[in-house]
């Protein structure tokens, strides 16, 4: 969004930097406002975190940077930090009178780009603009990297495991998509950095309307015959790329499959006691101090071909029609977990969940509308739900949000991996990028490449339901077959494909990180809070304070692995999604936010 005074601002930068200050202490708010004004910044103050968040959501481009206190009554500062990082991808500076190393570390883990100690001095505030600038530079760099990687991936993986249909689609469209992206990129490259706020972030928000169009298009074509290109053409939405549609379609399919499976398998489907769910979820929320949202109990990735997709799919009436069973779940429950809101009661209706899920920045109200009237249960969560679905990992490398993925064991012997999101935050992004793989989902098998990937018994329907989440919580990780391997990044380009788009959509975070055995040690060395990927532990239940992007990246041993790229890319919110998703053996839901 261009501001009319763009040129003026660009010249004056950093003067005119638009700062949002959040602090429940009125005295500090007044002082900070004065200080920032003296730095020639444009200041907006807010004493409630929830107000700040809605302000940020309403006007996405209104602010360049957020400064927030850590201790606030209505919402934990770290949580706000995560939200902002995920949804708006703005640099956030934390403040506190408490300078204890552990707190500071926590802030950094959650993605804070700086941590100031109170009393804050003018000179510290004078320099905050560098965070804004740095971020923009970083994003551009990421885009460049992404483009480079894409090229490699296309060459390497372009034709693997693709359906005929998809293949054709993919190939013909990838190049055109790339062309589009090239143009965008050039725009970036040429832009002056004088005003970082001008740098555009391409992101697709699957609003209710958009999703509805999508669903309509899908129905019109017929789910069996649908393909991203056809949907795109039918939807006729300018600016929407085939990749956007493709990734969204994958999610949708998974979502439907899951619904289908749930309705087939569950006896108690959707009968999870709301209380239970709520309580559990609440408990989960409580578990992590600031990182409620993201707790990733385990990032077990799954195995095999099925991708665990992020259930970001918006609920749709057609869900019932889907025959495919998708073992993936999780996100839905994640959804419910959106931290601040009470856990939704019953996710039986996946549609609900997904709706919540994929909506970025949707307000709860909108979600309500999106929900089907029949399933009222879901509701819930979403007070914040839409936003958090995908954990975007802000470039600062914080993995604030971890999804909890727990393996639910079930009697069902399908090797389905279910990720239940235990944590409140919707971080989920299982990404199933491969459309064609929807069929394969039922054949999920352990990924041969990573023996550590436990296969998880799919948990029927539970996955989607918050109830299931709570169940899981209770059970703890059932079968974690070991390992800490949580995210398995199969090194496949697939994840990558998924990631960017999803990131853009903030829907899924195809985070698949492969934890090789040697990373076990690394896991140990991670901050205690980071139970991330430890399957054994239910990450969600513990305080997953991890943001550890840095840690994570350490774990990813080879910089040029796909994994890292993918992860990196997925962590960059602003990357455009270029890839046609191909086979994604593993879907990693855990967003290391």
């Amino acid at each position, binding site marked *: 969004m261009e501001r009319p005074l763009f040129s003026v601002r660009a010249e004056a930068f950093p003067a005119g930097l638009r700062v949002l200050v959040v602090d*429940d*202490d*009125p*005295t*500090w708010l*007044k*002082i900070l406002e*004065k*200080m920032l004004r*003296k730095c020639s910044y444009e200041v907006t103050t807010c004493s409630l975190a929830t107000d700040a968040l809605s302000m940020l959501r309403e006007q996405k481009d209104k602010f360049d940077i957020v400064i927030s*206190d850590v*201790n606030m009554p209505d919402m934990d500062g770290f949580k706000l930090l995560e939200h902002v990082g995920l949804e708006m991808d703005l640099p956030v500076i934390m403040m*506190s*009178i*408490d300078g204890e190393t552990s707190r500071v570390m926590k802030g950094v883990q959650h993605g804070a780009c700086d941590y100031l100690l*109170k*009393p804050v*001095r*003018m000179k510290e505030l004078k320099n905050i603009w560098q965070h804004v600038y740095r971020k923009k530079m970083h994003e551009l760099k990421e885009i460049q990297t992404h483009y480079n990687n894409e090229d490699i991936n296309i060459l390497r993986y372009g034709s693997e495991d693709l359906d005929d249909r998809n293949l054709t689609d993919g190939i013909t469209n990838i190049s055109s998509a790339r062309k589009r992206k090239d143009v965008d990129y050039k725009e970036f490259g040429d832009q002056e950095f004088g005003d970082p706020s001008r740098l555009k972030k391409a992101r697709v928000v699957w609003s209710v309307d958009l999703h509805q169009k999508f669903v309509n298009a899908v129905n019109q074509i017929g789910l069996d015959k649908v393909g991203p290109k056809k949907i795109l053409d039918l939807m006729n939405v300018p600016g929407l790329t085939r990749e956007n549609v493709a990734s969204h379609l994958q999610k949708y399919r998974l979502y439907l499959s899951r619904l289908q499976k749930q309705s087939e398998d569950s006896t108690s489907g959707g009968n999870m006691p709301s209380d239970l769910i709520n309580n559990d979820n609440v408990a989960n929320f409580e578990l992590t101090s600031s990182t409620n949202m993201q707790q990733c109990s385990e990032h077990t990735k799954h195995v095999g071909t099925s991708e665990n997709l992020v259930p970001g799919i918006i609920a749709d009436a057609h869900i019932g029609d889907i025959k495919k069973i998708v073992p993936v779940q999780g996100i839905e429950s994640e959804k419910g977990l959106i931290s601040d809101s009470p856990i939704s009661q019953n996710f039986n209706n996946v549609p609900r969940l997904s709706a919540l899920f994929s909506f970025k920045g949707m307000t709860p109200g909108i979600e309500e509308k999106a929900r089907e009237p029949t399933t009222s249960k879901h509701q819930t969560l979403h007070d914040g739900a839409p936003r958090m679905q995908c954990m975007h990992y802000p470039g600062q490398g914080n993995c604030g949000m971890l999804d909890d993925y727990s393996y639910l064991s079930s009697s069902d012997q399908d090797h389905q991996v279910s990720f239940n999101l235990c944590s409140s935050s919707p971080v989920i992004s299982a990404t199933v990028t491969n459309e064609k793989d929807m069929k394969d989902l039922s054949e999920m098998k352990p990924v041969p490449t990573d023996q550590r990937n436990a296969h998880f018994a799919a948990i029927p329907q539970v996955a989607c339901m918050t109830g299931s989440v709570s169940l899981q919580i209770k059970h703890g990780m059932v079968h974690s077959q070991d390992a800490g391997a949580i995210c398995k990044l199969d090194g496949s380009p697939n994840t990558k494909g998924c990631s960017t788009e999803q990131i853009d959509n903030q829907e899924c975070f195809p985070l698949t990180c492969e934890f090789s055995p040697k990373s076990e040690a690394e896991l140990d060395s991670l901050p205690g809070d980071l139970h991330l990927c430890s399957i054994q532990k239910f990450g969600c239940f513990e305080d997953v304070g991890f943001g550890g992007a840095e840690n994570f990246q350490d774990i990813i041993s080879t910089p040029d692995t796909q994994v890292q790229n993918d992860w990196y890319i997925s962590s960059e919110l602003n990357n455009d999604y270029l890839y046609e998703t191909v086979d994604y053996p593993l879907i990693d839901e855990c967003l290391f936010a």
Partner: protein
Amino acid sequence: MALHFSSAHPISALHPLLCFFLHDTYPEMEYASGLQRQLASMKKNLFDQGYLDEQFYQLEELQDESSPNFVEEVVTLFFRDSSRLVANIDQALQKYPQDFRRLDNFMHQLKGSASSIGAAKMKNECTSFREFCNKENREGCLRSFQKVKKEHAVLKQKLENYFQLLKQVGPVDKATHSGN
């Protein structure tokens, strides 16, 4: 208005001499400068005795034409908010069994608030209160809180006096105030 020099101070020793000197030449000035000196002295005491710290100077730096009463406004805001917090803590302390976490949260807030105006002594008492809280020492908390309240009240009174005097002295060059 009560003006007193709370402690032996070089200026007070000089005062009679200066009065003598100035009285002859600039009577009005003597009065004004006397007030100013009092003000300066009062301020110096506040710092010397540890009631205020560096942060208070920072606030003064922020004061300018667009907000000429900035410091006083901030201080007023502080006392209003902190009084509320103190009352909350008082209430919380009455409860049984003690919720130390909640108390700690309150005190954390209060401490953060105190740091905003540079209320050093008060801040220190808040810190020791939190230490007692951590150890779940109820007795210690109660005693410590009495100290916090006391520091809060004392500082409030002193700053009220200070600002009253400040008003009397009138808008003066900053250097005069902080320099003396």
